[in-house]
């Protein structure tokens, strides 16, 4: 069952993921006004990862759901705040990138645990593939499915991609 202490630990972990993402936003010279939003994206991804793991998903499928959630969030934010989706996506993806997988793969290979090394290496590649799948799927979805700002003056807005760029330019296909 979901107990209070479990919820507390989720909240704490989400907060840590938030700050970790903000740290990466600083390293990548993100404009200051986007720190909060990049952090929220990373926090969301990690929260979904944890909840999926709690519901019985393995690392790979939990990574997939988390990637879908955080990419959706990143794209919505990109529409709402008219900022390239890359900013939120790259900062937010870091908690999910298989750093642990890379470490264990190297470790097992160098301690001559070849079988375990292969297993971990394969898992790392699988995680990379589901992250790719998650990002790719969500970025190809039609814009209707995302939160976005209405552009009041232009009736013929065309919101292609995760890029709010097109929002203000009528007439471009």
């Amino acid at each position, binding site marked *: 069952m979901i107990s209070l202490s479990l919820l507390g630990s989720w909240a704490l972990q989400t907060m840590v993921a938030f700050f970790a993402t903000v740290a990466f936003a600083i390293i*990548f010279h993100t404009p200051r006004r986007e720190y909060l939003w990049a952090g929220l994206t990373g926090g969301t991804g990690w929260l979904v990862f944890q909840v999926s793991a709690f519901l019985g998903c393995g690392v790979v499928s939990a990574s997939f759901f988390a990637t879908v959630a955080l990419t959706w969030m990143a794209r919505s934010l990109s529409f709402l705040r008219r900022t390239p989706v890359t900013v939120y996506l790259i900062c937010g993806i870091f908690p999910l990138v298989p750093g642990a997988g890379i470490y264990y793969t190297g470790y097992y290979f160098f301690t001559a645990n070849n079988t375990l090394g292969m297993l971990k290496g394969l898992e790392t590649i699988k995680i990379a593939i589901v992250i790719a799948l998650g990002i*790719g799927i969500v970025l190809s979805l039609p814009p209707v499915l995302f939160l976005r700002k209405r552009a009041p003056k232009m009736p013929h807005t065309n919101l292609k991609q995760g890029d709010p760029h097109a929002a203000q330019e009528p007439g471009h296909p």
Partner: protein
Amino acid sequence: MGKNESSVHQLATEMGEVLLENGAEISRVQDTMERVARAYHAESFNAYVLTNGIFMSGRDTEGHSLTFIKQYGESSIHFGRICAVNQLSREIARGEHTVEEAFSILEDIRQLPYCPLLPATLSCALGSAAFSYLFGGCWLDALAAFLCGLALEPFLYLTKKHGLSNFLVNLSSSGFVAFLASLLFMVGLGNNLDKIIIGSIIRLVPGVALTTSIRDFFNRDYLSGTIRMIDAVLIGSCIAIGVGLVVRLMSPLTGGSLL
């Protein structure tokens, strides 16, 4: 008029250049260049962009050919500049700037500073500590990872300043971090060496290359996607080798089995 047209081509190309150098994905670079050219009615503008190069050709109103080809080394990430160019191109598309104004704004964007070393170091340390905790480390592990992160960012800064190749930077810095973590572990700081190292290498992990590569693939820029994907795999392998080697060498000192 002919003069003006050729400077439009130059403006579009330079905006693409800034985007590419600061880590934008290919379709955004190409899209922005074409939008800018169209906004100033430069109809003959054609551009082809790769991860490591821009090819542009066009014609001014007097029929002279214009060509621009430039090859790029590696890009360093600067989201501030990407956002600024994005904003500029949106304003250009709304017709708010003359070509000269746009050039001077672009020059300002190029001058946007990098984050100074101190805040970068602190955020690298904070990020390392946070990730060490997220991956199951205890508070002591997080503290050790914090110290590793504190050393890692200056190390990266120095190696890049001395022009080490990307390959060597990743290999040496992951080895350096693993060495430092092992030392801290031997002194008694931290309970799980693996969690400390995982937290500390997260700064090096190829998250940017992986994400950009995926985006390029799904935008059907297969060649650029492949270049980035190879980059991601190489970086990942370098980290695994650097860390694995050092942990193996240190294992008699840190006490055999570490997991």
